[in-house]
């Protein structure tokens, strides 16, 4: 059955593949990978809601849209300083505007020793072979329509490597900016982050954008943490109000490696993040905390898939969500403990608040356990602000809207309180408050 051919979105991607001259073209293995992925995408089409991982996120609206294959002026477009969060951007940074790497806005000249950070296209130009394992990998069962598209059409990305034993002080920033262009544009970026044995790094990933920029960003990222490596990763998503942002992050942890992840989801019209964590090495650890605050018709979906493969592995996820107006939030946490992963300890906790009768939040924890001596816990709730507490605040003179903001901020803030350094934590809290202020106007 090949009904995909009549879908405008698929057509626009197919013509993009024909029109674009993509990095590395001429490399036989890469051309073949791209071609096969495109064929698979056309055959597959967009993910359907019968796919468990897309159950609550329909892309039917997207299917009717067409996107330009690139923004020709992206390399020179001025970017409003106000979009950049300067207080949160101390340190080296890589900046992409409408999917195009901007060396003029990036700051990569003073990278610490042992840290390599470059765009994927330049890394590939310099030396394609070390990237073949990633970019030439055949499609697999985990692929959906968008990851296939990404395999076929990636035009750039970040390659970030930290050598063994290097402890990088201060965070590196990766900033994705969406600004208005001549037409709504789709871009596909592929990134690789690799930390050598006992390496240590903090990354802050920012997504910002102008309200009027209705682009589609399709980002795939692979993170590899070798033995005893430690990555602190903070994702701050405040894409433009009309933006579609689809992310798939695949993380593999070796023995004794640790990933500490914080997410703040505030922006975009449709934002989805699939986070696949493979706790492959013994005693590897994944901790995640996140919050979303949505209003109007925003839709945000976080799919957290944690696989305990090694012995004595640990995962803890603690997420909170707030939806107002007609917004919809989705948080799924699946913990899979494979045979042999004895001593695994996994937890998924999700609390949510609905601020309007038309808002909706779906949360679904799932545990699948095939090993011994496993500890696994989960808890998920959807509730409303406590009327008694609201009245208490109002009885002291605090107006209703402010009382709601105070309580929502307190509700979400617990997920951010471990963010380091404190200036970054304050920045996140300030964004949260700003979002709440917007939500109530």
């Amino acid at each position: 059955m090949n009904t995909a051919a009549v879908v405008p979105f698929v057509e626009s991607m197919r013509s993009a593949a024909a029109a674009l001259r993509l990095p590395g073209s001429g490399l036989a293995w890469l051309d073949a990978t791209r071609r096969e992925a495109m064929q698979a995408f056309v055959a597959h089409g967009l993910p359907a809601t019968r796919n468990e991982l897309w159950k609550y996120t329909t892309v039917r609206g997207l299917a009717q849209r067409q996107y330009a294959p690139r923004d020709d002026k992206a390399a020179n477009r001025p970017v409003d300083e106000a979009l950049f969060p300067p207080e949160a951007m101390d340190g080296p940074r890589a900046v992409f505007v409408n999917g195009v790497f901007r060396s003029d806005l990036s700051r990569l000249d003073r990278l610490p020793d042992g840290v390599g950070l470059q765009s994927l296209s330049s890394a590939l130009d310099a030396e394609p072979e070390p990237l073949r394992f990633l970019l030439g990998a055949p499609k697999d069962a985990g692929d959906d329509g968008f990851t296939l598209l990404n395999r076929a059409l990636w035009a750039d990305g970040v390659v970030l490597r930290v050598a063994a034993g290097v402890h990088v002080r201060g965070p590196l920033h990766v900033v994705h900016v969406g600004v208005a262009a001549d037409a709504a544009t789709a871009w596909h970026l592929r990134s690789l982050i690799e930390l050598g044995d006992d390496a240590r790094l903090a990354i802050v990933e920012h997504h910002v954008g102008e309200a009027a920029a209705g682009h589609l960003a399709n980002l795939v990222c692979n993170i590899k943490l070798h033995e005893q490596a430690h990555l602190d990763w903070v994702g701050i998503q405040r894409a433009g109000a009309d933006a579609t942002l689809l992310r798939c992050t695949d993380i593999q942890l070796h023995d004794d490696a640790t990933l500490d992840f914080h997410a703040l989801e505030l922006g975009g019209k449709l934002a989805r993040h699939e986070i696949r964590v493979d706790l492959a090495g013994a005693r590897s650890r994944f901790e995640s905390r996140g919050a979303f605050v949505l209003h109007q018709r925003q839709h945000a979906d976080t799919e957290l898939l944690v696989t305990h493969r090694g012995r004595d592995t640990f995962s803890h996820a603690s997420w909170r969500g707030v939806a107002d107006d007609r917004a919809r939030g989705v948080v799924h946490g699946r913990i899979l403990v494979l045979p042999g992963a004895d001593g695994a300890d996994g937890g998924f906790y999700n609390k949510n608040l609905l601020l309007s009768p038309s808002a909706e939040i779906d949360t679904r924890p799932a545990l699948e356990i095939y090993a011994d001596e496993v500890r696994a816990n989960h808890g998920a709730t959807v509730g409303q602000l406590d009327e008694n507490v609201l009245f208490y605040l109002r009885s002291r003179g605090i107006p209703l809207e402010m009382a709601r903001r105070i309580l929502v901020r307190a509700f979400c803030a617990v997920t951010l309180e471990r963010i380091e350094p404190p200036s970054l934590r304050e920045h996140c809290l300030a964004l949260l408050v700003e979002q709440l202020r917007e939500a109530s106007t």
Partner: protein
Amino acid sequence: MLKIENLHARIAGTEILKGLSLEVNAGEVHALMGPNGAGKSTLGNVLSGRPGYEVTEGTVTFDGANLLGMEPEERAAAGMFLAFQYPVEIPGVNNTYFLRAALNAQRKARGEDELDSMQFLKLVRGKVKEMGMPAELLNRAVNEGFSGGEKKRNEVFQMALLQPRLAILDETDSGLDIDALKQVADGVNALRSPERAFLVITHYQRLLDYIVPDFVHVLDGGRIVESGEARLALELEAHGYAWVRDRTPAGAGA
């Protein structure tokens, strides 16, 4: 200052207040007593604007304005304060932040200048000392992990900081040991002034040894069935509420 006339109020379809009338003037302390379930808390809640209550008859004015038409926060800004019978815990909301937000919201609503954080800290630290509250109170979340007695004392502390013109204390004495009871009474007595009034709801006479009221009222069946001077509380203590009931034929007004 406060004038309640023939107040009827219901919750969840049940009429609780059935024609209550009461007048409180500036400078006065009124004690409101009555058996469990009489409607004492209902009155405090209706006066402070708690959602869920429906007033079906009667009027309440505060300084001549229609109190029942005001939002809870407007009542607070106008000088109304309710010390809750069951104060709530608010995890994640810092006390200092909460108190400053409350005070400044009230000041703003009254057209007064808001206090900056230095001014506020000075004020609040002074009050903590004056009221004998533990200094770490200010760094904790509102009422979180407080014992029953600590919560009640914190209500009085908030009252002292916000300086209301009419304070309603709903069983602030219940569950307190004698030292805490005295501290609560000291807090109230320190605020007594010709511009301020108090409505002290209590189940027991004990508190009134320390806060001597100008008037005592007995609420029963949603109505004030007896009013008198401080002495009335002692008689109630001696004879119990049944004594009032016997004296007041069912269906008679206050």
